[in-house]
């Protein structure tokens, strides 16, 4: 069956793929400066309602909201993806290692996780901004560090359950060392839970980036991000509700699309689901 036929058969997946593609294109186009015209200030057109000229309306500075949403995709989704990827790449091996090695290693990894959880990511972002200067990089590092113990805990918990299964004993009898046990046997069985957790973390990271931008620690003005658009719209929501609708809808659709795509990826990787 061709990919196009599969998409026609499955509307949800098709829509999710379309949203994903749109976000990706928007991010690429905004790097190429495609929205610069819409982002220019236009005091005469400030707070215009949606119309044929400005489909999504304009903001308090007369910038086109459609252009802002498209350009914001780069920072919002980029920061979220990078933060979750950081958590996955460092957290999963950490959690797997803790589960397989046990003892002191497990204790150290778990306490490290508790320590990170105890430090708010906001505080971490402030410290980073103070040393590196503010920018989206701070948000990625601060949110990424926060994601490490999240994935480490999921990986450790599931791995410990799997370690009690007989196929792990069989692998040990077959001479598998701890590392190959963790990566060859446990990791494939963890992927389902990790993918689901990753889609949740993506959603959280997009909103957390918004929070950091709000206090001036994430993307710096005038670079738009969905989070900053939402926080700036707060005081104007009664006069110009479209300032909330469109970035909010973009955020919701993106999170939804990520979770549909994540779910399909999980089913595809599981031989039992026939995917």
């Amino acid at each position: 069956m061709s990919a196009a036929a599969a998409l026609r058969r499955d509307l949800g997946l098709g829509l999710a793929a379309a949203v994903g593609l749109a976000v990706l294109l928007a991010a690429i186009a905004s790097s190429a400066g495609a929205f610069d015209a819409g982002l220019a200030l236009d005091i005469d057109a400030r707070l215009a309602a949606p119309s044929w000229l400005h489909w999504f309306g304009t903001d308090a500075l007369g910038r086109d909201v459609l252009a802002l949403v498209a350009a914001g995709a780069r920072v919002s989704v980029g920061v979220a993806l990078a933060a979750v990827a950081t958590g996955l790449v460092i957290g999963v091996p950490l959690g797997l290692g803790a589960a397989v090695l046990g003892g002191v290693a497990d204790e150290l990894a778990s306490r490290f996780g508790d320590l990170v959880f105890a430090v708010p990511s906001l505080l971490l972002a402030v410290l980073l901004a103070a040393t590196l200067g503010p920018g989206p990089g701070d948000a990625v590092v601060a949110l990424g560090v926060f994601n490490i113990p999240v994935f480490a805990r999921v990986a450790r918990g599931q791995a410990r359950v799997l370690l009690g299964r007989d196929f792990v004993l069989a692998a040990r009898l077959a001479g598998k060392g701890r590392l190959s046990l963790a990566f060859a046997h446990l990791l494939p069985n963890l992927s389902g839970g990790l993918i689901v957790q990753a889609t949740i973390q993506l959603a959280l990271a997009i909103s957390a980036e918004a929070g950091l931008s709000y206090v001036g620690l994430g993307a710096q003005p005038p670079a738009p991000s969905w989070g900053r658009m939402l926080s700036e719209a707060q005081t104007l929501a009664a006069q110009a509700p479209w300032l909330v609708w469109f970035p909010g809808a973009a955020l919701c659709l993106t999170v939804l699309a990520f979770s549909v795509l994540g779910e399909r990826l999980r089913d595809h990787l599981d031989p039992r689901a026939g995917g």
Partner: protein
Amino acid sequence: MALLEVRGLAVSLGGRSRLEDLAFSVADGEILGVAGASGSGKSLTALALSRLLPASARTSGSVRLDGRELLELSEAAMCEVRGRGIGIVFQEPATALNPLLAIGTQVEETVRVHLKVSRAEARARALATLGRVGLDPARIPPERYPHELSGGQRQRVALALAVALAPRLLIADEPTTALDVTTQAQIVELIASLAAREHMGVMLISHDLAMLAGVADRLLVLRDGARVADGATTSLLGRPPDPYTAALVRAFELPAAAAPRRVAGEVLLEARGIVREYVTPRRGFFGRAPMKRAVDAVSLSVRGGERVALVGESGSGKSTLARTLLGLDRADAGEVWLAGERLLAGGARPQRALRRLMQAVFQDPYGSLNPRYRIERIVAEPLGLLERAPGRAERAARVAAALAAVGLGAAAAGRYPHEFSGGERQRIAIARALVLEPRIVILDEPTAALDAALRAQVLALLGELSAARGLAYLIVSHDLGVVRAVADRMLVMQAGRIVEEGATAEVLSAPRHPYTQALVAATPSLDRALAARRSGNGHP
């Protein structure tokens, strides 16, 4: 009129017909045994009667309890029936009880949900019910929690919950499968005496024909969701009227091992004074965690080509011992020797050549195969113990040979574990153990998760393999039927120690240790049960 009257009961799940045109009845005080292989629809029938099937299931036909049609009742009315009309006991007592409620409180809650009585009255009734199921409140305080009870006692509490409101019909679905042999007999006896004393009809679902032969008045045999036979227990099992029932009976009565071997070969596997201790949960908040000896100075030996069984109840330490022998667990004291070399616990790498001589098959065929791997990769895994990794062609050839040895085609190699039945999975697990052509295989309860027909097949396969290859076995089991069918010699383990040892036939016919005697006496035997029934003293 019969107490329960089922006519034309049919159930389909997900568009597939699972029960077809089923008709049977249960009279007051009668015990109807329901038998059949796994997947034959036994449990489904119980769920359909009590209307506990998922909403997606389609049920048709008629189920009358005391003349009242159950399939037409509203859910609210049905809740009333469950408990007061029908009591239900399931297989696993550990999950049937709420771990956070004291047992007396659990029974009390059940009473209060259904009857409008004062708390004191409900309490009195709960205590009386616990007494009825043999948990005398004077000896077993009702303030105890489920984790403080043994498996058998927990099943008694589950039974108390089912009979607290004196239902007309008791449905017991494999109520003894999760219990030890000696406890099984007591629970069955309790169910039979409750039925007789309280004129309760009982539907007793089990794959254990000997147990059914001992207590059931009539027997219903199911196959693929349809009735195959129905009749008085003794005549049905004594002279099966149809080939399917005859096959069930044959599969249940395992033949004794063909010509027990007296092996005079050199010692292959030897354990010397193995000790394994565990930390038990601490008592109280400040108490110190006491140590428990799971394996207490055990020594044993297996010769080349010899088939040895290690017998004991759950908690006797036999599985812990098996893991230690395999080098998976470190012993706190003692040594394991394999083919004249000392086996070190932990990583298998340094002792690859030695490890190649010993492989294992585990109990649960659903947990012992990695669900993400194809069969080829699963079966080929032990080949990693070879000095030099085999090439692709050699690897495929060895996997195909191992699969052929267990009666599976080479096509199986490209499929995933979930595409196979439980019996086939256990064959795959055996193929994995054979791929290196070891000299000894340790099998931990290899048939416990299989029903009688599959059990007979797997045991026959194990017998053939040992005869053809001169393979030695150490079989860990609680099932004396299995032991009789495959072992030359047996060891009996209790509370971490080996209490008796000898040739299988001799130990089983003349057990010396009291524990072995109790085990042998409690083991259900179809012939013995039928003989007892015919002489009229089988029913308690």
